[in-house]
């Protein structure tokens, strides 16, 4: 997984065999019992959530005692860069989630590319998204490793790998806005990652964790359509270029329990000296 491969499609094809293995190894993957849309989507880091913020939800529709698996492909097309992600997850009991994601970040204007692999775990501690007054609360970790440390090191990063830790709280409020259900999510993350890890971890000056806040709100317009916003605070540690907070507005279409499509308009601010990076986000996800 360390060799940088240019083609997104090739990447996807490469992932298929072990995806099949993943799916094949889980016996009796019937359609999960949970209510449609409660699995959320999958973030660019592979964890269940919105587009850029991990939520407390567990991927897929598996309920207690049930397995679920998902696979996704995402593209984010901003002015001077393109981020492509493929990922997959396996979850059990609506409690544990294991995810993998591979990011390729094309430096369209500068030339070249960056990339990282992410392995994520998530554990539901307490609460049920739909049913309890207590919000659903999960703990998560994301281990990240960049493909090639040359560029991150050149701009001042300390390490080529790092772990993000987060706690997320999500709750759905029934009949909250004009008869529609409302999802609120708040996430606190401890991270050393520069630009989510694509520019390495820590700096020459500091190896400390930074705490950042992330939040999402979404309204389920229909049973299958969710409109929402996300905000993700980012650390700004590297001296060579400013790093901004990210935000997006998304529309998610949960076609059925097996297929969903998310489109978003994202504002990623300044990246590696290129200011005001904005553009479209498109993600497709399959779920078993």
């Amino acid at each position, binding site marked *: 997984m360390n060799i940088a491969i240019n083609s997104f499609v090739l990447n996807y094809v490469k992932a298929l065999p072990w995806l099949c293995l993943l799916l094949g190894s889980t016996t009796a993957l019937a359609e999960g*019992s*949970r*209510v449609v849309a409660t699995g959320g989507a999958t973030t660019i880091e592979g964890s269940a959530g919105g587009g850029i913020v991990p939520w407390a939800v567990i991927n897929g529709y598996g*309920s*207690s*005692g*049930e397995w679920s698996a998902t696979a996704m492909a995402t593209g984010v097309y901003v002015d001077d860069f393109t981020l492509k992600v493929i990922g997959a997850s396996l979850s059990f009991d*609506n409690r544990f989630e294991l995810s993998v994601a591979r990011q390729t970040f094309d430096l369209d204007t500068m030339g070249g590319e960056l990339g990282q692999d992410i392995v994520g775990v998530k554990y539901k501690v307490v609460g*049920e998204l*739909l*049913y*309890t*007054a*207590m919000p659903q609360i999960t703990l998560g970790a994301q281990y990240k490793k960049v493909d090639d440390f040359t560029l991150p090191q050149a701009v001042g990063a300390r390490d080529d790998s790092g772990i993000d830790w987060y706690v997320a709280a999500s709750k759905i409020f*029934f*009949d909250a806005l*004009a*008869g*529609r*259900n409302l999802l609120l999510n708040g996430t606190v993350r401890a991270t050393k990652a520069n630009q989510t890890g694509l520019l390495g971890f820590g700096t020459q000056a500091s190896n400390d964790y930074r705490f950042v806040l992330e939040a999402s709100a979404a309204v389920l317009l*229909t*049973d299958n359509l969710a409109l929402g916003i996300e905000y993700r605070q980012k650390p700004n540690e590297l001296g060579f270029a400013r790093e901004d907070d990210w935000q997006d507005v998304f529309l998610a279409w949960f076609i059925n329990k097996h297929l969903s499509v998310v489109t978003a308009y994202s504002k990623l601010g300044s990246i590696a000296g290129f200011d005001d990076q904005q553009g479209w986000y498109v993600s497709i996800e399959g779920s078993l």
Partner: protein
Amino acid sequence: MSRLWITMMALTFVLLSSGCADKSVQPAPLQADTTSLYQALGNDVGVSAIIDGLLKRISTDTRIVHHFDATDIALFRERLIEHICWVAGGDCEYHGESMEKTHQGLNITQADFDALVGHLIASMKEQHIPLATRNALLKRLAPMYSDITYH
């Protein structure tokens, strides 16, 4: 949480009974809301159709049907219709036991609960109940989760 539920029920009762005591008074907004949920579900005819759709779906769902092996279905149907009427603020009396007592010892899991909620939603859709009305009923049923599951 169950205290919240009881408070809500008590409030509903107070509003309903005060409404009955003096029918000439303009209904308060909350009362109008509670009576209209039962009406929005189609009163007795509508709720009965929803419950029949639910029972039809449960009877063919191998994941949960075993829970009802020893159940008197005719009585269960009556109690469910009464219960939904009561929960939706209709003018009914519920003759059954509390949710906690009724489901005691059944070891109902989250998967069972999710499956039943899924069938209820499907049945309401079949009866063309609008989204806002469906959500309003789910809002009142969802807090029963802790009384019904895992004991």
